[in-house]
């Protein structure tokens, strides 16, 4: 692939990823990752001090699926929607076997509970540090590290970023 094709593939992956979450198709979310993967949400406070604790830490596609099952069937939370904005997508490493990219994200959260129905707030902003590989010409995240500048979570974090 040439540089243009790689950029297009990475952009398409990011956009497809955020639409999947924002459209509440969470059952498809693990498919954006390779079988052996790493997905974690790290508060910037921890990243800046090299501290290893993540708020979500999944090191297999199975763990991502478990997050989705818990989201649907186990965890309790105020109903809400996300709207992701992704921008400043930058390919920072171009090992042909593995592309690394850095992307800014912002998530607005709109509440659907009776108390705050229809209210939107800026819920989280930060960056994605991604390692992307191609499996049968399909781009997937081998690693997605979400560094959340917003390290004080409003209420709780249940829907992935």
């Amino acid at each position, binding site marked *: 692939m040439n540089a243009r094709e790689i950029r297009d593939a990475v952009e398409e992956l990011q956009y497809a990823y955020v639409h999947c979450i924002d459209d509440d198709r969470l059952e498809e979310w693990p498919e954006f990752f390779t079988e052996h993967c790493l997905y974690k*949400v790290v*508060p910037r*406070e*921890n990243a800046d*001090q090299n*501290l*290893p*604790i*993540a*708020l*979500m*830490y*999944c*090191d*297999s*596609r*199975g*763990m991502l*699926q*478990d997050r989705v*099952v*818990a989201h649907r*069937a*186990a*965890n*309790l*939370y*105020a109903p809400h929607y996300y709207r992701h904005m992704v921008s400043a997508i930058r390919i920072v490493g171009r090992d042909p076997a593995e592309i690394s990219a850095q992307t800014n994200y912002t998530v607005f959260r709109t509440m659907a509970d009776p*108390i705050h129905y229809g209210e939107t707030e800026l819920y989280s902003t930060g960056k994605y540090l991604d390692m992307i590989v191609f499996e049968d010409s399909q781009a997937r995240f081998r690693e997605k590290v979400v560094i959340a500048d917003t*390290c*004080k*979570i*409003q*209420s*709780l*974090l*249940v829907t992935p970023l």
Partner: protein
Amino acid sequence: MKTSQTANGESFRWPQPETARVPYQVFVDPAIYTREQEQIFRGPVWNYVALDAELPNPGDFKATFIGDTPIVVTRDREGELHAFVNRCAHRGALVCREMRGNRNTHVCAYHQWSYDLRGQLIGVPFRRGIEGKGGYPADFDPTTISLSQLRVATYNGVVFASFAQEVEPIEDYLGPTQQPWFTRVFNRPVRVLGYGRQFIRANWKLYAENTRDPYHASLLHLFHTTFGIYRSSQGGGVIMDDTGRHSMIRAFKRTEIAERAAYETTALRTYQKGYTLADPSLLQSRKEFEVELTNSIHSIFPCLVIQQIFHTLATRHILPKGPDSFELLFTFFCYADDDEDMLQKRIKQANLVGPAGYISMEDGYAAEIVQQAIVRDQDACSFLELGGVEASNVEDLVNEAAVRGFWQYYRHIMDF
């Protein structure tokens, strides 16, 4: 029954039976909130402020709060810990403007008054004025001025501070019933693994109740039952100190058979879903403590919770931010001598707790849905009769004894 004045002078009466009712007014009234700041947080208590491991070196400091008062904890050249109110003695500016770091002196940004690591004033610019004009009077004595200093005590690596001149030593504050459980977790040096913060739109006491309430564990948190992991919700008990202010809730594994029977006979909405964890590595555990518990939730009045859930170890610090909001700060730690396998287990099992925790994310939410519903009818009250109306130790987890214990001491310290 006692009638007391709230800070705004209105009379306030605790409903009957006073051990088992809590008027919703205490979660919303700004006057009661102000009174708590005085009588609890600046009263005869030891407030959790840090782990010793957060300030290992001379000059290290950490900014935090006692109640809603900003404070700073520092370590001096001799290794001694100090705490002072983060408010300049000159005209009140925030002196320390960073969360953490290392400094020899703390200098106020506004007019550069500088303080040593104990909070003592050591430098004042233009003290003598310029060319004989201005400056401070001749009798101005900087050695008599300091930041407002607090008492500090450390217990097994946990740092506490107090505004009160008269508060018992930390050992006695914890007392003989709580010390062994505190020491069970803080049995050797620890290392900080990271932080998790939540902002909860609810009164801080709703969370203090939550950590003293084992009833909700298998009802609000459906993680275990959804995935068919038989939850150790029925074996355990509650141990309080004589005042009722501290509480240690421990849960241990019953046999699977007994547990299954408990669920089947109570016909809960849970347990039958038929899900299993796609990746069960999350819950892999190995023997770690002398006294094995799946969960231990140790609440130290007013605002500290020490938790062990599987292999996750954390302090939870409740930081009130007004009558209707608080911050919940998780400080995750491990032991300094942990092997790599144990460290990885703690990191992975952090999925269980914190802002995105499988079995903890609902706690703040539960506090919020209470706060949302009690905005009116402040003389209405909650009903706390699970297990009776007493606040004594129990050997079961279907009990609100420790919640009653909290309110018993709250009424005492608040003079209600």
